[in-house]
């Protein structure tokens, strides 16, 4: 099956996922079209991280289907490495490689995984560092950078693989309020350039601004979803109302 642009780039259908006896996802479905930005919001422990980790195969699922570019992610025959070349992921705790400089962090995957020419990759990596406004920090080690700077290096590191989809798991949750903005600006630019993004976030203002569609999850199900305008004004489910009233 070949994927065409009129089909969802990521399609999640009735996904169930348990850790032992604990059922974390109880039949989740959502679709993302190419170039779309979707935000997943919901209370802590509702399964948001678990869901997006299923998209690049970091978690397996018990039933249902997840396709990325028409490929079934949980097909045992699928080459996970091929999938992960197309899906970038940014974590809450940045998870940069502490023994490599910022530039080396960005260059590592294209050189080692995609076997691209080192010179060429370096040029691109420097351009990416400038894009995330870290020009001049190429030689710094992660330990020498602020949280916000590290997170932007992490974004550049994912972008260096030229992914088709980017996953962001609460990437600003560990940051100081002042540095949150610099990371959000970077993500917004990406969204405007047409990158397909799946974001888990607690930043409601940001979600409202950049998202094409918002999903609200609670206890393993999607309670409600819609475009930001209608979602924030007209959310009807009491659980959503309660969550929004606490956050806004």
């Amino acid at each position, binding site marked *: 099956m070949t994927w065409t642009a009129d089909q969802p780039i990521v399609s999640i259908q009735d996904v169930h996922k348990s850790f032992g006896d604990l059922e974390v996802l109880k039949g989740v479905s959502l679709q993302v079209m190419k170039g779309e930005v979707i935000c997943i919001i919901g209370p802590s422990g509702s399964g948001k991280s678990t869901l997006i980790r299923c998209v690049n195969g970091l978690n397996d699922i018990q039933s249902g289907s997840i396709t990325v570019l028409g490929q079934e992610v949980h097909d045992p025959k699928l080459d996970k490495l091929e999938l*992960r070349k197309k*899906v970038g992921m940014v*974590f809450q705790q940045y*998870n940069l*490689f502490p023994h490599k400089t910022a530039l080396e962090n960005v260059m590592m995957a294209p050189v*080692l995984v995609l076997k691209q020419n080192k010179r060429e990759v370096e040029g691109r990596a420097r351009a990416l560092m400038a894009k995330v406004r870290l020009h001049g920090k190429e030689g710094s080690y992660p330990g020498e950078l602020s949280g916000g700077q590290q997170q932007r290096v992490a974004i550049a590191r994912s972008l260096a693989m030229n992914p088709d989809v980017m996953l962001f798991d609460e990437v600003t949750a560990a940051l100081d309020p002042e540095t949150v903005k610099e990371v959000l600006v970077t993500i917004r630019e990406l969204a405007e350039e047409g990158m397909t993004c799946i974001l888990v976030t607690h930043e409601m203002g940001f979600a409202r601004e950049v998202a094409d569609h918002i999903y609200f999850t609670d206890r393993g199900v999607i309670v409600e979803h819609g475009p930001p305008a209608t979602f924030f004004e007209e959310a009807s489910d009491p659980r959503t109302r309660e969550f929004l009233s606490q956050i806004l």
Partner: protein
Amino acid sequence: MRRIPGVTVPARGGMAVLKPFDVHRHVPDGYVMTRWLASLPWWSPFLVLSVMAIWPQIPLAQGRYGTGEAFGALWRWMPFLIKSGFLFNVLISVLAMAIGTVAGAMLGLAQISLYRPVRVFAWFFTQLFRNSPWLVLLFIVLLAFPFEVTLFGASVRIPDWVKGVFGLSLPIMANISEVVRGAVLSVPSAQWEAAESLAFTRRQVLWQVILPQCYKRMLPPWMNWYAILAMATPLCSLLGIEELITLSRQAMEAEDNHPELLVPFFGFALLLFFIYCYPIARWTIHLERKFAVKL
């Protein structure tokens, strides 16, 4: 807390509530000997020397062969004991450490293999050699290995000291295997996930991301095992290998086995090991503390 005489650590000043129970002070962690050695003051060998100097006078004062003659004998034998004896101990320890490190690194990586049989096999060997008495391992190697091997048609005799090196490298291998496994496990799993999401293969994750972060953590325990190994080399004297202790005994025999010789000669051996291992122990504990704070 009920005080058990001689067992419980005496209560210290200050409020107990503010001092949480520090597990590391109470549970042996493999650094016991090194920590003890490093905690000795630098002048402790002089204390040993002064004991050496007065010891024989008390019980053996009536003999004609006195402390002066004993130290004179030691002085004459000293260059020989250092050059042919102690340096040989150092050579044995360096070779055993090199072999043990290479073999231990491989065994440690096998312990985290994806293939269960490999993992189980490596775990078994690690536990077996880690928990066997070193002397038993030495004797097994000495007796089980052939006297000579045939290389390119010519038979070569394997000297006992080579077997001693192999015998000592076995427990080192097993302990280094645990050091490697422990260091790999100590890297947060988030590093694995970050590398995996960038489509690294398992081999790339391990060699490019995880292991480079391990080398620093492995240095203190590695040095710790070297200090322990260096101090264990006199075990070889029980196999008749001509290292420091064996040569000291031979030298004393040559000096007619006067009992007054015992303390100066073995005290001298103790001194040599102290001078060699003490800086290593100090440095190990220093690095261990430094890295523990930073990591």
